[in-house]
């Protein structure tokens, strides 16, 4: 059982709920934020292990959030997976350059998304000490 905390940033309540159900079923804890401003606040307060970030957000879009995270020493090492309805052309390279670890266009393949989440999360000490 892992106890990693994932911050979900999306302005659509239904999509937040779907992602929360999916992540909880995979034994992750979740917290959420609904706009760019509260995403930064939540990242400070919750210190999540990973952030899943939408790009089209009110009060500071995803790129603003990425920029703020990168510029803050306390937050810059939290991996960010971008999950957006926006077109990969133009946005994918930009997001990766701005510090995102991976880019998914909605609707994303769930199995693939979970694989990348697993690969991206820093291994917790208890997990890596177990024999594989």
């Amino acid at each position: 059982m892992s106890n990693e905390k994932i911050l979900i940033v999306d302005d659509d309540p239904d999509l937040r709920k779907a992602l929360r159900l999916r992540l909880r079923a995979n034994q992750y804890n979740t917290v959420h934020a609904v706009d760019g401003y509260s995403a930064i606040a939540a990242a400070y307060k919750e210190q999540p292990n990973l952030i899943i970030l939408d790009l089209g957000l009110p009060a500071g879009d995803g790129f603003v959030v990425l920029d703020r995270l990168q510029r803050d020493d306390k937050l810059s090492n939290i991996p960010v997976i971008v999950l957006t309805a926006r077109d990969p052309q133009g946005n994918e390279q930009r997001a990766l350059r701005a510090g995102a670890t991976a880019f998914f266009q909605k609707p994303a393949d769930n199995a693939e998304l979970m694989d990348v989440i697993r690969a991206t999360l820093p291994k917790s000490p208890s997990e890596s000490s177990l024999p594989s």
Partner: protein
Amino acid sequence: MSEAANHVLLIEDNPGDADLVRLRLVEAKPTFDVSCVNRLSDGLTSLQEKPPMLVLLDLNLPDSQGADTFRKVLEKAPGVPVVILSGQDDEALAVKALHQGAQDYLVKGSFTSAGLERVMRYAVERQALLRSLEMSRKQQLDFKNQFLSHVSHELRTPLTCIHQFVSILLDGLAGEVSMEQRDHLRTILKSAHQLGAMVRDLLEATRAESGKIRIEPRCASMMDLVQTAVAMLQAAAREKKVGLEIRGDAAIPFVHGDPDRILEVLINLIDNGIKFTPAGGSITLQVSLVPTDPEFVYVSVADTGCGIEPAAKSLIFERMYQHPNSVDSSRKGLGLGLFIAKQLIELHRGRIWVVSDLGHGSTFSFTLPLYSLPKLLLPVITQAGVLRDALVLVKVELKSGSIPPRGNWKEVGPHCHELLQRCVFLDKDLVLPAMTASGSTETFFVVASTDMARAPIMTTRIREQLEKLPELKANCDLSVSVRAVSLPHTAADRSLEERVAEVAKRVTEMTRIALGESKLATN
């Protein structure tokens, strides 16, 4: 009204004709502000400094004659209406100018002031109409493209929601689901996938039309791509009870193309084949070389489906063509697939076409340029028509420690290629295009004009450069290996072309061995 509204530029070298036109102008409307010049060069300067409402232009001037005169005026001021002043004997020339965009012409000495005024007024009005038509056409096109891109984006959010909640139910995350319910949920999910594919095609077609599709060609294994596409669609074919197989016995060379885009085309063609082939039929993919067209590889996808009406053959690559009686009971797509495939192949400078026997099946074929090493090598490994003495092949390998690779792996290849270009002398070393390699390795080769004794200088330089890769420092657990091997000498008694081809052959052999692609060797 602005100053330009009354400003007429008269370009006429005959003083008598100029005076007469000026007189008629003043008679027609005393407020006309007429500038008169007698050389084209002065006229062009005046056009720039003080744009007129209209130009009255004599085609034969001291510094320019005939159609050329009009062309130069049009170039300088494309939006200004031009009325040609023609002599009795060169009316044909004036008519020609009309076809090129002049608004009207007048024969010198045979027009009244009222006639002149009317010709000028109509010319100005026609020009304004033309411009507003052009603008609204462009606005409409822009609007359409913006609209489609907006719509396809907005459709994605509800689509994602359907997709997510149905898969939550299907995966049993919200409690037990009965067999029947599961069936219904699968149908919903399948429809959501179809809808998603349509939304993607919509955006892609919009892009194709506005020329915004980008391709990133590299050295790609055509056979690998065909195998990948077949593996991806094997389940769908089996479900429909349609055979899906690859035929091809020759060693299939590499192509110079964007692997993602080529895969897109293959998937599209196979998918269509499955759709239009009844149960019991089959789809065969073939990759081959055609001796008469040695610079291209030929790929065909043949089905035993319903075939295409001869009349429809020229239409199927158009946007939104849909087969009138698809044998598939499921619904049609948007009819954009083949249109997009055609754009993608043409971007690669290939061709795509179809041969069909109504009732017996269709064969879609396309060509892609072969990756030609000798052509790339020739200017680099020869100097003044002589092959360089010593050549070395350097292999650079970037390996990710985790599978799938962490971090922005997609960036690693292009970045690495860019850095390698900076480590070499572009006139005597060649960084080969990236090879498609396994999912967690990127391999590059450099053919360098140096000998083994001096090769370490280069490998050290490459290593130092690559250690600056941002991905290496960040979250990619990458390892870099750089190794050089000497390229054997070729027989000196042969022609330069033969020797370059020989070097290319050896490089190819060595890179294949290095990539572990023994399956590509001739069998």
